[in-house]
């Protein structure tokens, strides 16, 4: 499989090179179809974690016939271990707005909304100021698009796109049944292109540099670079933009503390990779996809505690509407507690793994569907720590 040598890049946070107004003017000179073709050609996939091809999403939304469409920037960055969107919105918000405006032009939307995580309210005042300036700059150029800011209230589930729409509409944030997908019926049941913060910045960068230079980085399945949130047992925690397609062992060499026992790739809902699998693990859509969270654990950490924390998190953050997720999370949590205490036999872990498998195929949304990722990868690789 194609792999890349770990490489730090600086496109996202580079402000010297990027004049967003110039990018915007240059891009708006193109037709909507040309822009969408560029984005498709670049191979850009959603940076929120699910990895849906951005250009296709835009194409579907554009193809819907509706006078009202929306662009939404998903800034409900709630995945444990992820903090890159906060940094992006703090340091280069204009690049995000620009991506939104380009998207609005491409799909035919006049309104764009940033759904900001409730815990990031401290960014609000500054963001609103910059949004106002940006909107006036658009108005000066007679470009009919406006960015608005909406605040979440702290529920993890509202990062799920359809729950986010419900939340914006003033409803209880719960994932909807799909289909219809957001491109057909999203916010206010209108065609909606919803993209992650980082994705929108890459849109701006692709429009500035052209798809070719974006494609020059990364692998066939994972084009470009990505922003990673590095945390845990590392001497150098922080935000790093890295080329996609690197093997995990190189990442651990770069960021680990020499005693790295496991890396949780993709946050609480991601996979836990133990030391023995570093060499075979590629960070990218062909290997382990990630929204950017890289949590590093060294040998002082109990993987039972790690899993217990994750399960507590999901038990609390499940919206509670669907059975597999609401009850399943509780059962997994109580289950490992019972095994640890000896109230259930170690073989009960097999029942729980079967339950996790059910949750993966039976839950209504990505939350319940992904709990099996950490559960199975931690139980399989650190079984002794769970039992004893």
């Amino acid at each position, binding site marked *: 499989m194609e792999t890349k040598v770990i490489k730090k890049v600086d496109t996202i946070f580079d402000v010297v090179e990027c004049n967003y107004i110039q990018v915007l003017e240059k891009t708006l000179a193109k037709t909507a179809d040309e822009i969408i073709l560029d984005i498709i050609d670049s191979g850009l996939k959603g940076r929120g974690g699910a990895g849906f091809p951005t250009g296709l999403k835009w194409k579907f939304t554009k193809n819907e016939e509706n006078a009202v469409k929306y662009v939404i920037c998903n800034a409900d960055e709630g995945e444990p271990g992820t903090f890159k969107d906060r940094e992006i919105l703090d340091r280069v918000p204009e690049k995000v707005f620009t991506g939104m405006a380009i998207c609005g032009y491409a799909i035919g939307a006049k309104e764009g909304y940033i759904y900001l995580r409730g815990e990031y309210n401290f960014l609000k005042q500054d963001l609103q100021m910059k949004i106002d300036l940006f909107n006036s700059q658009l108005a000066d150029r007679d470009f009919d698009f406006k960015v608005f800011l909406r605040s979440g209230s702290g529920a993890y589930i509202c990062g799920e796109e359809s729950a986010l729409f419900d939340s914006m509409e003033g409803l209880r944030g719960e994932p909807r049944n799909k289909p219809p997908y957001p491109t057909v019926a999203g916010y206010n049941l209108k065609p909606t292109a919803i993209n992650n913060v980082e994705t929108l910045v890459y849109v701006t960068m692709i429009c500035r540099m052209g798809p070719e230079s974006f494609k020059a980085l990364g692998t066939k399945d994972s084009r470009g670079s990505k922003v990673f949130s590095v945390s845990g047992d590392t001497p150098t925690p922080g935000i790093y933009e890295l080329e996609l397609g690197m093997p995990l062992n190189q990442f651990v060499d770069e960021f680990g503390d020499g005693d790295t026992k496991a890396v949780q790739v993709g946050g609480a809902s991601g996979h836990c990779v133990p030391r023995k699998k570093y060499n075979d693990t590629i960070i990218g859509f062909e290997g382990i996809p990630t929204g950017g969270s890289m949590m590093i654990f060294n040998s002082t950490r109990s993987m039972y505690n790690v899993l217990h924390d994750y399960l507590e998190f999901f038990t609390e953050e499940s919206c509670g509407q669907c*059975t*597999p997720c609401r*009850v399943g999370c509780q059962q997994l949590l109580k289950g490992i507690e019972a095994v640890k205490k000896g109230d259930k036999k170690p073989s009960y872990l097999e029942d729980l793994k079967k339950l996790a498998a059910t949750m993966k195929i*039976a839950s*209504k949304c990505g939350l319940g569907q992904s709990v099996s990722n950490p559960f199975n990868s931690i139980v399989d690789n650190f079984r002794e720590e769970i039992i004893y």
Partner: protein
Amino acid sequence: MSKYLVNLKVNNIPVTVEEGTTILDAARKLNFHIPTLCYHEDLTVAGNCRVCLVEVAGSRSLAASCATPVSEGMEVLTNSKNVRSARKNVVELLLSEHNADCTKCFKNGHCELQTLSSEYQIGQHLFIDLVKTKDKIVDISSPSIAKDDSKCIRCQRCVRTCSELQAVGALAVINKGDHQRISTFLNKPLSEVVCTNCGQCINRCPTGALTERSYIEEVWDAINDPSKHVVVETAPAVRVALGEDLGFEAGERVTGKMVAALRHLGFDSILDTDFTADLTILEEGTELLTRLKKALVDKDEKVSLPMFTSCSPGWIKFIEHMFPEYLPNLSTCKSPQQMFGALAKTYYAQKKNINPKNMVCVSIMPCTAKKFEAGRPELRDSGYQDVDYVLTTRELAMMIKQAGIDFMKLEDMEYDSIMGESTGAAVIFGASGGVMEAALRTAYEIISGRDVPFTNLNIVPVRGMEGVKEAKVMLKDVKPEWGFLEGVEVSIAIAHGLANAKKVVESIKNGTANYHFVEIMGCPGGCIGGGGQPIPTSPEIRQKRADAIYAEDEGLPLRKSHENPEVQYLYKEFLGEPLGHRSHDLLHTHYKPRKRY
């Protein structure tokens, strides 16, 4: 617009259905049964219980068949290994958060979760019991509805019922994750919120989480107390639904068997709410004509029109909370149940020489709101609580079973007299539009001296299941004393289900509609779809019950309320005239505004 047709395969059998059809419906077309819990025909689709999962070729996850539309070339498996195993897991999970105290549950034998766990042979619990002790405290604050959170499976059918069908919103989902539950505004007890006690949530609860407050034991105690004379009254809609809980198909009329069963149970007098339904027509009809006269002749601007019917206690509490400014528009007539209670403990007691102190008045109702109504402080005009206990159709069926009565084999019996006689006009009170039809039959004849101008007295435009029905009746060639009504076109409307009631009141409020008389029933279909009726309910079942109501009407010798000889006798012997002094004291009342929260 004609819909596209979609071809798919369910369990390898090809089927063609209209675009937009769900997988569930497509499978049902082929007679493949897929279990459901959160799905209900009367409600929007939730797709949250996940027991209707099916496998769709090419999809990584299973699909909720109730919520997934078919697509061309789709290949669906409803009973694959994956499906069975996931479905079983889901039911096991539901059981782990369910207080499976089945043997003493009112829903034992009718519980959808119980049926499902039996189908999937789920015995000892695989998973850890998650039922919280605090959830076992049942909310019995309401005299109508008991809410037991420990039995709740969070399907949200009650929540959707309360908001979609009833526009009440007393029940809502609160919290998330393991704390998610169905609750009320600020977690207040049911008795302190906008709940109208309609019981539609009970009709749609798949488990025993929502049930009626049961008064069976109190009624047994009264029957067994030799010092008490226990009078029972039966509402119109009970006779066309009771059979469903006792072995009959929906739509079976069991009036005679019901009377026989009540006699076997030991009630002392078996009387009919239909009697006071006829009486209601005379009182309410006179009230309407009086209001019209005030408006048309006296030009009294204070007279409140349209006049709303006041038979449905769910509707009464709804208007008290939601539209208190329209309380003057309510007919002052008590509901037939309450007219009955007031007369039982005065007129009937006198005639039969019974001390009303020793009387117990029990009513059998298709309704849970009637339980609340019976306890209203406004309704004690006999000097006692007019109606002591209200049992639902379901509770009566339970008593009949407890008594070991073979209901299906009972010989028909007749109601006792007096207050047991009724007409077809009273029976149709049980279906939406029935009160209107009964009122028109009588009022039209009083005004014109002629039968209503509809074949065989059947006023078809006011019948049927449409949410809001409207009609106009032109009054011509009226009797001289009603001359002020000559040429008046009386405009009427009928709504059933409180969401439709809300629509009608709002259209009156914003001036887009203008009526003289409006019939409103709190429950979908009227009383035949009441919150105390046998479970399950569906549009089809309600239609069958309504058909039975109209068949019962057609089969009766008298079909106009004013022709009821016992009602005529009552006026002659006791009341004097409609809206007379005694009527005013015993049969009429006023209601007060309530807050929304």
